[in-house]
Each structure stands twice: as structure tokens, then as C-alpha cells.
């Protein structure tokens, strides 16, 4: 004898529906004003008959999905095993200018568990050519502006902010709990300081560094290199920010996303260099 109902999931809750129920009749019954219909992790625009085990999410325009719903959608997009690793991870970012703000956004978008970010600076008008802030955030401390922006992307990512200038003494105290450390400073001596202070205190813990990303040289000159078991270096190693060779969003973004992808690969136990 055939069953006359099937079990599905609606917004992460089990639901029994009649055999032959379609996606759109389900929407009509539960949230007729839903603008987005997501079936098994992917948005759909055409009606179809539901099958046992289907997972449906209905979202109104402007509605913020709950934590479990967003997690389920992320897991479906990332594959569950990958997402579980991302969700458990903590990443530190030293400096949230052009590199750090873009790296933080990339990692928040994939649902990283926790970010620890530190920077002493405030948003200035010239920063807007490459840094992931908005014109109405000028004057706001970068870590606070970034926290606000990340919350608009994924409010369930934990963000710990530190408004201070990093040095050899406070780096180990702030970043002792990270799985991967990211160097995203502007100043060259700060880059070296972070590598020495972090690696000296946490030998073997991975750190992803950037060096050489200014101007509008070809994107493909920026590469990801492994320099030993724990140090990953991104950049062309040559092109410094200087008059006539400014830092600009496209190339800084290329480097930032090299760094973010290196972080992801390290978290997943993969070789960042490939």
C-alpha cells in the first residue's frame, strides 16, 4: 500500500505533506509572500512536485534567515564536511585595511566560525579606493566598521575586535587561539614583526603573509608560495606601494583572495600552494 504523505524539511523543521504536493502549493500554505524559494540548497523559480527528504526554505525579501536555516543553506552549497570545518575554525587577521577587510569579508561569506581582527586605524577617504568600507563610515575605527559590515553579510559569524596597534608583546596574547593567522598590514616592518612574534610563540601554527601587491601589474604575477611548513607568502615580492604605484582595489583584492583561499585550504588540510 502506498503512503499518502511524505516527510520533508521546511525551514529546518520536519513536515509531513501529501504526496503530490508541489513547491508552490507549499509556499501558498506556509508563506505566500515568500520571494525566494530554496530547494535543497538552490533557489528555484519553477514549480515541481516535492519528494521525500526534500529541504525547502521560504524567505521574504528583507527577511534575515535564522542561524540554522543559513547554516543549512551554506552546508548545502559548501558540502557538509567542508562547511563543518569552516564553522569550527578561528582565524586571526592583523590589520584590516585593503587586504584584511577583503579577507575578513571572504571568510565571513563562507561562514567561518570566528574572526579575531585588530587594527588601530580609522576609515579615511583615501581608503575607499580599495578597502571594504563605505563612505558613511569615514572616521569610524576600521575594526568597528568591519564588524558592522560583516554582521550585514552573516550575523552568525563571531567577530572579536581589538582597536589597538599590534606589537611583539600583544600579538601572542590576542592571537593564541587562532587556527590560522593572517598578516594584512601595510607597513613592511610590521609584516616582519608579526611573522617573528607569532611564529616565535606558536611554532608550526600556519601564518599567511602578503608582500608585493601594489599598482596595476598583471594579476598573474601574484602567486601563493609555501616558505616552509608554516609560512605561506602571497604577492609578487617586488612591487611596493610608492608614488606612481598606488594600492588599488583590483590587485589588492587579488592578493587578499589568494590569502583567503590559502586560509581555507590550510583549514581543510590542503596544500595552499597546490
Amino acid at each position, binding site marked *: 500500500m502506498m503512503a499518502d504523505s511524505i516527510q520533508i524539511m521546511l525551514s529546518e523543521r520536519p513536515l509531513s505533506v501529501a504526496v503530490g504536493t508541489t513547491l508552490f502549493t507549499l509556499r501558498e500554505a506556509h508563506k505566500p509572500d515568500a520571494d525566494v524559494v530554496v530547494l535543497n540548497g538552490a533557489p528555484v523559480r519553477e514549480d515541481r512536485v516535492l519528494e521525500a527528504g526534500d529541504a525547502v526554505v521560504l524567505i521574504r525579501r528583507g527577511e534575515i534567515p535564522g542561524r540554522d536555516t543559513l547554516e543549512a543553506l551554506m552546508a548545502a552549497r559548501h558540502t557538509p564536511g567542508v562547511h563543518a570545518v569552516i564553522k569550527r575554525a578561528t582565524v586571526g587577521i592583523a590589520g584590516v*585595511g585593503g587586504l584584511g577587510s577583503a579577507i575578513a569579508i571572504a571568510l565571513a561569506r563562507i561562514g567561518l566560525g570566528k574572526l579575531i581582527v585588530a587594527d588601530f586605524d580609522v576609515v579615511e577617504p583615501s581608503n575607499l579606493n580599495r578597502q571594504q568600507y563605505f563612505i558613511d563610515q569615514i572616521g569610524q575605527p576600521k575594526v568597528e566598521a568591519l564588524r558592522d559590515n560583516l554582521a550585514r553579510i552573516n550575523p552568525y559569524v563571531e567577530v572579536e575586535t581589538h582597536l589597538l596597534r599590534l606589537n611583539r608583546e600583544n600579538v601572542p596574547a590576542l592571537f593564541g587561539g587562532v587556527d590560522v593567522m593572517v598578516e594584512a*598590514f601595510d607597513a*613592511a616592518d610590521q*609584516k616582519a614583526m608579526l*611573522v*617573528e612574534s607569532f611564529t*616565535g610563540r606558536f611554532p608550526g601554527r600556519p601564518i599567511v603573509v602578503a608582500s608585493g601587491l601594489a599598482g596595476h601589474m598583471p594579476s598573474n604575477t601574484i602567486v601563493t608560495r609555501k*616558505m616552509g611548513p608554516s609560512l605561506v607568502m602571497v*604577492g609578487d615580492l617586488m612591487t611596493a606601494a610608492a608614488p606612481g604605484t598606488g*594600492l588599488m582595489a583590483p590587485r589588492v583584492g587579488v592578493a587578499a583572495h589568494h590569502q583567503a583561499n590559502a586560509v581555507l585550504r590550510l583549514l581543510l588540510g590542503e596544500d595552499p600552494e597546490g
Partner: protein
Amino acid sequence: MRVTVQYMGQLGHLAERSEESRELPEGASLLSLLEGLSAQYGEAFGHIVFTGENRIRPSMMVLVNDVPVEKTTPPVLRDGDQVTLLAAIAGG
């Protein structure tokens, strides 16, 4: 004793090589290696590696056997060590 030196980025251009093997006196320090390299490879190379007070420039990254070293206490080198030199570049 012999050590291998790897040059990355601008230092490689100035030294016109990416790697070389160098003979050093037993017990030579990292500092003496860098002084020798700077004397050999010219003023521009030396300016990247050292400050005017002959201290290793804060932007230098030095790895010995793939491990970053603390420049304020440069280590004594051993036979077979691999030293990697990179000057960090401003921009972020």
C-alpha cells in the same frame, strides 16, 4: 662549513641569483653572513638588509631551515643550514 642561501624578491634580482652555496668559518653568525653578502652584492643590497646603524632592517624576513628567526637575536649558523632572505614589501 657550508650553508645554502636563498634570495627572494628584490634581493634575488640584486644578487642575480635565486640560490647559492657559501663557505663560512665554523660558528659564523647570521649577522656575519649578511655582512658578507652586503659587501659582495653592493650598496642597494646592503641598504635593503641593514639600517644605517648596521642593524638588520626591521622589514627583513630571515628564515633558517624554513623557520623565521628573531632578528634581534640572530642565531649562530650550522653546517648545512639553509638561509632564506626576503625583504617585506609595503602595501596592504
